[in-house]
């Protein structure tokens, strides 16, 4: 038990610290690297919860794909993030005070939190003990939660349409390969045979 809570505080602490570094690192590449660190540690939290499948998905999708994509974007677009952040230090004292007050206030509220003991009995989908949780997710996702699954699909469709609508431009004068035309070409249409006299050129 004690190892579990130690691991929890380790993962949670690193996640929060890495998240802070994501927004405060000067170099955008460092930000992305800290983001990856945050993802890894969140995956660790999932493992602690007994959700191995989610942990693996988080690593595969977010670290594997999204973070690398971010990295590409950051490196390819020369965004002057440093300039954007110039005002950051200037506003830090005031912003920090406001944030601190909010944090204290939230802290007072949170101190009064009591998680009711019956919560775990009311879980709408408690984790089954006898099957691995990958299987459990599959069984729920396509049956009980099929509506959410489909709705999420529609959202992704909109995201795709949106990305195409906002960035795709059909440019004039682009040469495209037309295989049919290439195959149809005949020697008479394209070749011209000329007799060249020796020593005179064309």
């Amino acid at each position, binding site marked *: 038990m004690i190892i579990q809570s130690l691991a929890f505080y380790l993962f949670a602490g690193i996640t929060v610290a890495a998240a802070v570094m994501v927004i405060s690192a000067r170099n955008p590449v460092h930000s992305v690297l800290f983001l990856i660190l945050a993802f890894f540690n969140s995956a660790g939290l999932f493992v602690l919860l007994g959700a191995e499948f989610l942990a693996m998905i988080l690593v595969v999708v977010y670290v594997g794909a999204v973070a690398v994509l971010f990295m590409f974007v950051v490196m390819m677009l020369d965004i002057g993030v440093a300039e954007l952040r110039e005002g950051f230090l200037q506003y830090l004292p005031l912003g920090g005070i406001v944030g601190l007050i909010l944090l204290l206030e939230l802290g007072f509220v949170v101190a*009064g939190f009591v*998680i*009711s003991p019956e*919560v775990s009995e009311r879980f*709408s989908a408690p984790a089954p003990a006898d099957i691995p949780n990958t299987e459990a997710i599959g069984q729920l996702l396509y049956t009980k939660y099929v*509506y959410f699954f489909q*709705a999420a699909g529609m959202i992704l469709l909109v995201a795709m349409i949106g990305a*195409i*609508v906002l960035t795709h431009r059909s440019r004039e004068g682009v040469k495209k390969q037309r295989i049919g035309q290439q195959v149809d070409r005949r020697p008479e249409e394209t070749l011209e045979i000329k007799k060249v006299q020796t020593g005179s050129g064309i």
Partner: protein
Amino acid sequence: MPETAFPNLIPALPEIFLAVAAMLLLMIGVFSREELAARTAGYGSVIVLIVAIVFVGLVAEGRVLTFGGAFVTDPFAVFVKVMTLIAAAAAILMSRSYLEDHKINRFEFPVLVLLAALGMLMMVSANDLIALYLGLELQSLALYVIASFQRDSTRSAEAGLKYFVLGAVASGLLLYGMTLVYGFSGTTNFDVLEKLFADSNAGAPVGVIVGVVFIIAGLAFKISAVPFHMWTPDVYEGAPTPVTALLAVAPKIAAMGLFIRVMTGPFGDLSGQWQQIIIFISIASMVLGAFAAINQKNIKRLMAYSSIGHMGYALIGLAVAGQTGSPAVQSDGLHGMLVYLAIYMVMNLGTFACILLMKKDGRMMEDINDLAGLSKTNPALAAVLTIFMFSMAGIPPLAGFLGKLYVFQSAIQAELFGLAIIGVLASVVGAFYYLRIVKVMYFDQPEDGLDGPISFEMKSILGVMGVVILLFIFLPGPLLSGAEAASAALLPG
């Protein structure tokens, strides 16, 4: 493997139809020539929306749950859905000439509006926090894209980006609130939540209340109520005008419907906790809407502030619904609110149709002074716009007056006198800038007139909306009874 029954798809028929039709139109658009595609998608989507209204009407039979209790249809959902779909269809009809003039007449536009409408229907029918979030996100994502649809204009791109970034923040707040509610109650289903809070005598845990506050903040952003309104004027000004017409009406009505359902349903028993927040938001929106609009020169910005104010008036109804004690009064509050929203829809669609007609030499005009002397150059248009402005200001006997009357009346019945008094004062201040538009049209020297002739679509929209506003007082029956049934469906007893 547990046996699961195939979900009952009938209640979700309008949504399924919309989704399939949107994808079909998308395919048609992709595989046909550009101009043909745009026209097919444009008219096709209007037909699809009308058919969807018919479906909504057909499946209306009491309260039906499906998809494991995550999706609900009831008379309330039907009422709000019909309003939303009408608003979306009108916005598409209005958009055609604008899109053609600005050479952005692409088939994706109506398809995205359809998908946004789908998201709105899903929001209205949500009976689960996850369903709520997914519907909201589908709607917002489609709207972010069409807000920056005129992508060669920096203003449009800026509007889309601003809307997107602030919308993402609001979604974050909403999600944070939802996780708190889930963490402290163990469920996301509205019915279970409602039962839980009704049973527990000690009241909800603090965590749930913090969660509810965050959810209110997220939803208040979507209806652009003060203090979450900052994005509204900029986005309304920058977005292409037909998009603004859509933004000002359809998503607001859907989000209001969602707001009502969330507050009176799962959190109905916590009304002591949230009523004061709603009262504050309502007063702040009314006052800001009234005062900030006075100095506006751009008519789209003016409409943005006006819509903030109108949301404040509508929220009075929700505050009344939070007044525990008499169910009859609560029901009156919701009833007034729904009637107000319906009238708001009609007035706003009409006004935006007029704004879309403000063209000089093929260029869109947005300054209020461009309307100078409209009564001489185009008396019919000036008369119609005057009707809408009078109605917005709440001058009897127009529909806008009756809408305000119902919400104020319900506030007085619920003994929320402060709300009612501030509401009346704010609407007096608001009348100033609505009447200023009328003054500019009738008493200022005319410059060169607006471009004619007005297309058939615009004429019919203006005609229908104008007639509804004028004659509502003689024939309020259908709307009132619809709203009555809708509000009765939400409140027990």
